[in-house]
């Protein structure tokens, strides 16, 4: 029986290939597929025969079936591709105006997107991403940052303690900078994005967890001019080349001299409005030359090295970019992405 099946199969194969070549539409090809590969095709018959075939012929028949299947399927697929692209008359049965079957689109969290954007800028300037623990010691979070116990600036940071006063949740990403200055070799050029924590009740503008982004450079011969140039370029990168900036004196315990960088309010162009609290300017970055006490606490000789550091809160930038008006929504799982269609 099996030789018959085998030869029948090879005849069917020749017929199938002819039919494939003759077909000019997708519908015709589908008909050919059903005839030669479908449930009542010579292939199905042969496969059925294979189940009851004697062991002696089973192997040969199996190979013939495989050969048939491969040859017909390949020819069919090739012809489908040709017909699909070269057909000059519209296919009566294929409505090409129907929406395609779309794979789902995934999305990065907006904070990740903004972090990546900023990373890309500093990466270009030769910075590495540096990370540190969120459960931090008093030493790296406060002591080494010129914030000894009872320093008034500690009051600003309402700290969440795990074991008071030694173990806490970092109140700023500056703790990662003291770690880098203590642990890494110099020169140093790092960017530090990360979660920080404060002990406060959450509302639309404050959350007990939020994101900061800080940068630190320690090298020989650095100055306020290097800091200013870096920040100006960064702010132009973020807000566009036409942004107006203001570099001014500002106190932070970790730096001396200390500086702030403001951009002119884009809503009132400096005249003062509710967005800029009638200042005409919006604070964007805190910065300065790393305080000699900080360098010393991290084992760096301030006679040989100097450093500059800068930082910004990320969440306000993210919220502004995406039109989100409640910081809690960023971090409670309630952001829904809707693709524009």
């Amino acid at each position, binding site marked *: 029986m099996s030789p018959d099946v085998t030869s029948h199969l090879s005849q069917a194969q020749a017929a199938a290939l002819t039919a494939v070549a003759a077909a000019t539409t997708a519908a015709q090809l589908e008909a050919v597929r059903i005839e030669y590969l479908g449930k009542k095709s010579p292939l199905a018959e042969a496969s059925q025969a294979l189940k009851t075939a004697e062991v002696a012929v089973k*192997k040969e028949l199996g190979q013939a079936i495989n050969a048939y299947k491969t040859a017909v399927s390949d020819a069919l697929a090739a012809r489908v591709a040709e017909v699909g692209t070269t057909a000059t008359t519209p296919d009566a049965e294929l409505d090409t105006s129907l929406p395609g079957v779309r794979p789902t689109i995934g999305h990065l969290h907006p904070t990740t997107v903004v972090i990546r954007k900023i990373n890309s800028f500093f990466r270009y300037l030769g910075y590495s991403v540096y990370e540190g623990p969120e459960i931090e010691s008093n030493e790296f979070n406060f002591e080494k940052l010129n914030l000894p116990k009872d320093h008034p600036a500690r009051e600003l940071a309402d700290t*969440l303690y795990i074991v008071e006063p030694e173990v806490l949740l970092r109140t700023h990403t500056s703790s990662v900078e003291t770690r880098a200055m203590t642990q890494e070799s110099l020169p*140093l050029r790092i960017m530090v994005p990360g979660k920080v924590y404060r002990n406060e009740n959450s509302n639309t503008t404050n959350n*007990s967890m939020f994101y900061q982004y800080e940068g630190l450079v320690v090298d020989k011969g650095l100055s306020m001019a290097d800091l200013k140039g870096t920040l100006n370029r960064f702010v132009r990168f973020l807000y566009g080349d036409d942004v107006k900036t203001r570099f001014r004196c500002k106190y932070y315990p970790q730096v001396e001299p200390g500086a702030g960088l403001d951009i002119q309010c884009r809503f009132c162009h400096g005249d003062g409005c509710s967005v800029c609290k009638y200042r005409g300017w919006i604070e964007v970055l805190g910065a300065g030359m790393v305080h000699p006490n900080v360098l010393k606490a991290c084992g760096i000789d301030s006679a040989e090295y100097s450093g500059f550091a800068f930082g910004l809160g990320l969440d306000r930038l993210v919220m502004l970019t995406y039109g989100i008006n409640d910081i809690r929504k960023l971090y409670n799982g309630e952001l829904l992405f809707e693709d524009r269609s």
Partner: protein
Amino acid sequence: MKVPINWLSQYVELPAEVPELTRQLTAIGHMQDKPPVEVGRDVVLDLEVRQNRSDCLSMIGVAREAAAILNRPLQLKPAEIELPTASEVAGVWIETEQCYRFHSLTIKGLKIEPSPEWLTQRLEAYGIKSINNVVDITNYVMVEWGEPLHAFDASKVVGQLRARQARAGETLTVLGNKTITLDPADIVIADDQQILALGGVIGGTAAAVTNKTTDIILEAATYNQANIRRTSLRHSLRTEASLRHEKFLHPELTVEALRRAASLLVELAGAKITAHGDSFPHPAAPVVVSLNIARMHQLNGLTIPTAEAVAILERLGIDVIEQTTDSLTVRVPYFRTDLVLEEDIYEEVLRIYGYDQVPDRLPSTPPPADITSALFVLEEELRDALVGFGWDEVITEPLTNEAVSVRPPVVLQNSLNADKTMLRTTLRYGLEQALAYHRKFRKPEIKLFEVGKVYFMVGDRQHEERWLAGVMAGSQTSFLTIKGAVETLLIKLGFRYDPELVSIMLGRDCWYFELPEERLAVAARDAQPLVRTTVPQVLFQDFSWLLPAATPVGEVLQAISSLDPLVYRVELGEPPRHVEAGKTVFIKVQYHQADGQITTEKAEPVRQQIVKLVAERWGGQLR
């Protein structure tokens, strides 16, 4: 700090336009906080005073800054008054190290009256209500000089005044009739019988000035600022006095403040100064700083001619006491308690010269080696791959309150919020919560992931680990779809799926997976897929087995795959079907020979091994 412009203009000639003044003050470090407001005929600025500048919580402090930046003289007349020689006996005893100076005047023959209009207007523009001439003068001098003063009715003081630590259980009724229980860390002003004031914060009612008062003891003290801050916070008493005392006030400040108050009291209340007490155990020498001019130029990023730098310092009241070609030695005025190091002086020169004069440069040294951690890079790859497969990233807050923790949790000592008492031990609950919200969006399938840390105790140490986790939900979601998603993710990144590494569990109406990134980072990895330039020549073979129902088919596939190098690919032909005798498993094997032509003959020994293996290990029978 509220700054009434008319009042300020008593000390320095101001620009005609208010915005010009606020611009200049902002540039040198005193940013406008709220916009200026009109009060009566005055305009009041609101300046943000940074933590280190206690001197700028005074009109004279702000005037000094304005004079320096405007380069105009400070018009400050010394108070014209003769004070009796100071004596320690006449004053107040200091019985605590937390009080640095206690300075007092005994003043007699006062007439309590309303204050003159100029005084009440200024105080009201600042935001303090006028009470009577004596109280107003103490408030006025506080705002003018930044040193809080307190007047005690001398007739109600019994014996000797002293500054001492409170004793446990002592109470005090303060102005406003609130009674507080004192803490031994609080500093109080007491006489021989009772407590009269909470030092640095607020007066008590016992010796308060009234309309009948004729004689007062006027005190000006300075304290350990941290102690005052804690007392103020402890008793929730934020006063104009505590606001100033919680920053470091120099003990010298009491001298000017008392002289000014005395002269006003003589002038406006007809008083006579009868005694002068001063307890000041540890006077300190003025701060002298030497600075290297070249280093100043280097750090500031620009060269300011030395003569100009010296002029700027003099404008700020910083005396240059010695000058060489490459160094300056300066003496810091007492009121600038923020100036200690030479870098502090660099900033003084620069801020008056102008931060806007600093050139715009970039560091000229080559970038150092990249020290970005491999784990950070891996996390970025995981994010990209998952987003590519249609997953959405969420970030959830690690502060939480888990009903059930999967590990011993790290607990917070002082959280304000009952929902945030600990750090999460798993990413699961946050993801499930996000999922619950996403369900409302009615998507047929939801796939959410988070890259984040979990925190737990290891013995008595706090520990944090970086994890990747995800949830999947939808009508088509099953254990096998989430497993397949993780398998594909790992294969895409060049890892092998390892059930030891990945946990998959049934969550709340979803499937949840998690994997520790630190362990993934050290797992074996093929950096890139195998790239072929020719289609591999393969031989197909199908196997159909009857296996016991409990056979782990994945292990069968795995075992066949690793049996022989000729085995190229092993796949399930169709899902296993359960039959009465067990289950039927249809497996398709492809053979390939890397260095030659694969033939049925060459594959035959392997085929036999496969059959033998499945028969011996799992009892499989070929069908």
